[in-house]
């Protein structure tokens, strides 16, 4: 085994803001610096790529000091948050854009699939578009011809092959487009997030084809996706990108683990350090999440995991109407539900006594779909007064749900929707 791709100190500098104003003066400045044999004056002030931080410089390093090797026949997954530099890296590897520094050495022909259906023309028939798209991706006419039947077969649009693609449904369109790409002949294949197309059946077919390509043909594949399930089932090695740098380069499972643990946007643990919420009844002290085994968790939960929401505090005056609970919101402030310890039959309620109290409310498995949520502490003396009111003054912790979809072979990638319930079906 030897390296087929060697990425050495790759960096990519981008100019932010409005490109096109003042570029002439910058160009002249650059040219003047080059004439004197100096460094690019604007490259120096470039900052690292962190989209959450508003930088002071107009220039930003989308990639910096990126180094890794890819061995022959390896299937590499690249993951990272939005804006971590994954796509920029792929663009450089695909020769769509140039790096600002460093070099990449390649052995073999690279074909890249940054998008399906590149160059499809709506007026042309499916047949013509197969040839055109194939040629754009680097196949010769003869190669396409020899695979034509397979491509049509795979796409499943045989009947419409001589109809202009503008008459296709969007599903048929992507099926055809992916089918062309699936039969590319090359030594190194680069695939960017293209699996999220078509219906479930076709997605599965694509995933299967990807697996087949990577495992049976011995081709080197680089695969970028947010769909961790797909990544972990196809790839053996992984790279985690963070703020334009390689944060981890290891086996795919370790890299995914690291990704999930860094993927916390807000605090997942609240503590009443400022001695807030002064009232005669209840003073909250802590608010956090635990896993099934009651270990405090700051990472994400799988869809198939129970989520424990823990509320701690001191009861200073017992009131039968004191209710403790929490509310779950989406990150865009849409309320999903309220929950109180006083839900259900009264004789089953937990008795609240004066002094320390600690409750766990369990969000059942397979309720929340993958995504980010906010959990707010909700306490009140019912119908009398709020202690912590959700959406107004309540403590907030963040809840991440990711992965854990693998209950069904047809549920390998995230579904749309806020909820992901696992319902039962019966014959009737």
């Amino acid at each position, binding site marked *: 085994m030897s390296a087929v791709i060697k990425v050495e100190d790759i960096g990519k500098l981008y100019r932010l803001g409005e490109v096109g104003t003042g570029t002439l003066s910058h160009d002249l400045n650059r040219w003047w610096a080059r004439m004197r044999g100096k460094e690019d004056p604007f490259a120096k002030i470039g900052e690292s790529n962190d989209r959450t931080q508003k930088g002071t410089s107009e220039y930003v390093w989308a990639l910096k000091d990126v180094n890794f090797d890819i061995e022959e026949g390896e299937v590499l997954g690249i993951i990272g948050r939005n804006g971590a530099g994954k796509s920029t890296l792929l663009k450089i*590897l*695909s*020769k769509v*854009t140039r*790096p600002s520094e*460093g070099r990449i*050495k390649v*052995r073999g022909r690279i074909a890249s699939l940054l998008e399906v259906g*590149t160059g499809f023309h709506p007026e042309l028939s499916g047949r013509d578009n197969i040839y055109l798209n194939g040629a754009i991706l680097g196949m010769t006419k003869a190669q396409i011809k020899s695979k034509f039947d397979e491509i049509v077969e795979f796409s499943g649009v045989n009947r419409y092959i001589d109809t202009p693609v503008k008459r296709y449904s969007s599903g048929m369109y992507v099926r055809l487009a992916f089918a062309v790409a699936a039969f590319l002949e090359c030594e190194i294949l680069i695939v960017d997030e293209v699996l999220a197309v078509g219906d479930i059946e076709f997605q599965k077919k694509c995933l299967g084809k990807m697996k087949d390509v990577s495992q049976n043909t011995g081709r080197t594949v680089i695969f970028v996706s947010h769909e961790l399930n797909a990544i972990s089932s196809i790839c053996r090695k992984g790279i985690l990108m963070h703020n334009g740098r390689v944060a981890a380069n290891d086996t795919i499972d370790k890299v995914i683990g690291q990704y999930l643990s860094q993927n916390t946007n807000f605090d997942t643990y609240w503590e009443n350090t400022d001695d807030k919420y002064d009232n005669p009844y209840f003073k909250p002290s802590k608010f956090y999440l635990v896993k099934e085994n009651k270990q405090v968790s700051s990472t994400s939960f799988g869809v198939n995991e129970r989520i424990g929401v823990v509320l701690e505090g001191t009861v200073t005056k017992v009131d039968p109407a004191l209710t403790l609970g929490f509310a779950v919101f989406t990150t865009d402030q849409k309320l999903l539900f309220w929950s109180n310890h006083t839900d259900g039959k009264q004789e089953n309620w937990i008795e609240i006594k004066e002094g320390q109290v600690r409750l766990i409310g369990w969000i059942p498995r397979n309720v929340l779909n993958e995504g980010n949520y906010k959990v707010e502490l909700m306490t009140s003396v019912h119908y009398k007064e709020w202690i912590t009111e959700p959406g107004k003054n309540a403590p907030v912790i963040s809840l991440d749900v990711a992965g854990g979809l693998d209950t069904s072979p047809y549920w390998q990638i995230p579904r749309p929707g806020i909820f992901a319930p696992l319902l039962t079906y019966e014959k009737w």
Partner: protein
Amino acid sequence: MDVSPAIQEDQKGWTEVIAPTSSPFDLHLADVWRYRDLLMLLVRRDFIATYKQTILGPTWFFLQPILTAITYWVIFGQIANLSTENLPALLFYLPGITLWNYFSECLNKTASVLKDNAAIFGKVYFPRLIMPLSIVVSNLVKLGIQMFLFLVIWAFYLFAGFKGGAIHPNLTICLIPFLIIVIGGLGLGFGMVISSLTTKYRDLIFLLSFGVQLLMYATPVIQPLSAVKGKWRLLFLANPMTSIIETFRYAFLGTGSFSINGLLYSTVFMVVVLFLGILIFNKVEKSFMDTV
């Protein structure tokens, strides 16, 4: 790509090195050749797509130049009374219109090639030179069809004759393929120079369509070179398209002028512009995705 010996040593066994810069003379011509099928498929696409869903279809190839010729006949021939060297108007205007259209379409389309194809260029690598080349070939097909129209009309007048004269084709006709190559080269060269500049400074696009129109009036499309006198004649002679259109008329109709020097000037002009265009295009193509 880079040629310093240390790097050459480093390059052993690697088929490709992606680096921030590469030699401006590395034109990837082998790559262009490998993608020749793509070129032909793009030409086919242009041809099918242009006239899809038009009632007259490819008939428009014929109608365009004829309608233009009629317009010129009314405005320049009848109202402005410009000379057609005693030739029937259609016969006089058609060659100029057809050749000029070839030039201006090659130029205009090539000038916006980077902008128009930014979506594709942003997603897939193929030798970028393929796109402008496909434009030139597409227009060549169109030119061929329009040439055919001209030949039919020309043959009609040749055998049927017309009032007040005759046409005298001569051996200069053999130069026609060469003339067409020079026009294509000029359009391609100019277009590539401009396309490279427009990725950063878009103002040029607005200037371009105006400039091309203006340049047509400094070309013997609507009047013969012989009718241009005084200081303006110099402007006409400086225009590389002038000698080509004059030669073409001379070859088929026997009117106008034939000047070896003029042709030589156009050819040298074409080679220089084309060379410059390819160099600039080749340089800009590598980074334009970041500025377009």
